[in-house]
């Protein structure tokens, strides 16, 4: 019954009415969400949307093309600073500045891809890590980008509308994110996407099949950097203040973790991983306010650890979740999803 009989069936966005129904429900939910929640949750949702965009971009590089990157905070920073600078110093309108900044980021992605062509594994990791560290250093040197003091957000105008509150940004971010998800999804199922996957699975085999390694690898870097740069520009408006120190190594590591924990080579995985980790990133600080557990942890600290350092439980929980997910499900959240789906499909057998 589930067999596909036609190529067009394979590339269809929504294979059946169930998917359409779900998508419709999702849209309703996303539209209604701001009206049934408060500003804080909208801020969290915005934060998640941005991380989803980054995770999509990084997944194209890591999950689909098989290239590791520990420097994506660098592209993120480029996107953020370029957007602000273009708007403030060159008085670009937002709708032009954002893609322009993403394009600049993509150019950097292309440049970093050139030495990366011959590298793999830890070598590529250290090269990209070096890029991430150096680029924030360079940005911090240049007064045009506010030096180490950073930049404040300019007015965000789209046509006649000014976007100021989290709610306004939400209505900008959500459609944009959905659009980018669909683009990424389609991209991975085109000739380009299949070329990426071929490179990931076997470089030499791909080359003999006629995949131009140089072209597609640099393209993967550029697309990935484009997505990340775009997200960076939006992040700058969610935070409304940026300085180079924000875009440190920790951020790059969290980005990479999102993709791996979500599930390599899966759009659903990127979304799930980004949502999970951004939620943990923002919400774990409240761990001590959880009834019973919080008090128990405090008692434990008083007895065996130190109460001044009790907040560090966040790190332990965060790390613990990473370890557990990767131990039991190498395909991340996507793997869990697939297994659950399978289980219910064949239930009760």
């Amino acid at each position, binding site marked *: 019954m589930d067999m596909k009989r036609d190529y067009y069936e394979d590339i269809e966005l929504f294979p059946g009415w169930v998917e359409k129904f779900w998508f419709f429900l999702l849209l309703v939910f996303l539209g209604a969400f701001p009206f049934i929640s408060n500003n804080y949750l909208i801020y969290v949702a915005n934060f998640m949307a941005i991380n989803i965009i980054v995770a999509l971009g990084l997944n194209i590089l890591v999950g689909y093309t098989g290239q590791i990157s520990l420097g994506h905070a660098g592209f993120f920073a480029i996107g953020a600073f370029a957007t602000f600078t273009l708007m403030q110093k060159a008085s670009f309108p937002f709708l032009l500045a954002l893609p322009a900044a993403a394009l600049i980021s993509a150019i950097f992605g292309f440049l970093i891809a050139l030495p990366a062509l011959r590298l793999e594994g*830890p070598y590529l990791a250290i090269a990209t890590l070096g890029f991430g560290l150096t680029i924030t250093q360079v940005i911090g040197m240049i007064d045009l980008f506010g030096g180490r003091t950073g930049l404040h957000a300019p007015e965000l105008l789209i046509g006649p509308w000014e976007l100021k509150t989290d709610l306004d940004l939400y209505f900008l971010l959500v459609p944009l994110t959905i659009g980018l998800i669909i683009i990424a999804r389609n991209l991975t199922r085109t000739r380009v996407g299949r070329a990426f996957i071929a490179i990931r699975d076997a470089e030499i085999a791909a080359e003999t099949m006629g995949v131009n390694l140089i072209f597609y690898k640099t393209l993967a870097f550029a697309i990935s950097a484009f997505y990340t740069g775009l997200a960076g520009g939006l992040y700058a408006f969610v935070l409304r203040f940026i300085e180079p120190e924000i875009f440190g190594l920790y951020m790059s590591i969290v980005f990479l973790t999102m993709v791996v924990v979500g599930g390599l080579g899966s759009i659903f995985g990127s979304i799930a991983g980004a949502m999970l980790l951004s939620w943990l990133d923002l919400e774990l600080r409240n761990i001590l306010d959880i009834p019973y557990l919080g008090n128990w942890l405090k008692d434990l600290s008083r007895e065996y650890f130190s109460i001044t350092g009790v907040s560090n439980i966040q790190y332990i929980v965060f790390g613990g979740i990473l370890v557990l997910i990767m131990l039991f499900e190498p395909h991340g959240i996507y793997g869990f999803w697939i297994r659950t789906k399978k289980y219910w499909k064949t239930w009760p057998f």
Partner: protein
Amino acid sequence: MTDFLLVLASGITAGSSYALMGLAMVIIYKTSGVVNFAQGEMGLISAYITFMMLDYYGFGYLATFFWAFVFALFLGALMEFAILRRAKDPSVLGLMIITIGLEMILLGLVSWKFGADPKDMPFPISPFESIELVENIYISVLEVLTIGVATAVMLILFLFFRFSKLGVAMKAVQQNPMAAKLMGISTNRVLMITWSISSFVGALAALLIAPANMGPFMMWDPLLKGFAAAVMGGMTSLGGAVVGAYIVGIIENFFGTFISIEFKSVVAFSIIVIMLCVKPSGLFGRHYVKKV
């Protein structure tokens, strides 16, 4: 000339502590292919155990160091046995994320127990006393010790991998795990021992860093630089890691002193990128051809 020698000496001393971290990373990468981001924090926890024994319970130095090293060996084995070995269908990236998770757990534990304030690590020799090597070239006693330890560890590891049965078995596991298994080598046990040794070397590095600067985040920079050094040397070569570490230390010091102090902490990475363009597997790494 004195300037040159002085900066060179500074570079070598800085390189020594990177070298230990680099060695620790290479040992694990060589046998199991895991880039171990928890390396620094494994050393950190050993250093804090040492601190606790010395400062809280007043043990003597010899007993403390002995137990700290026993702890480090045990910790390494535990990591491998209890966690990494349990990974289902491990992929290189998956294992790396596991080590990142472990890093956070260990860092969290240390900060939870000891708080964020910097600590004063008791140590038999002062990190701030120095001796005069040549005229006007001073080098602190702790740094002399670090250089000595780094050299000794390197030599011992070299001899170990070259001549001991276990060392040869480790090499075999690295080159072809399946064949090694067929030859009757217990690869699991070999991996566990590898992690132990690596944890021990990491603990040495942490103990030598701690007297001058002890806090929960003291191992971040050495870990990164050690990783960079290992990559420079080729990630699979012990000698390479040490040479890489000294190159990184020396470049940093010369660049920082004579060109730009602002870019000192990132110059090593730029140099590495350039070097990798020429030699994609590092200075001493063998570039093996992948079979299709």
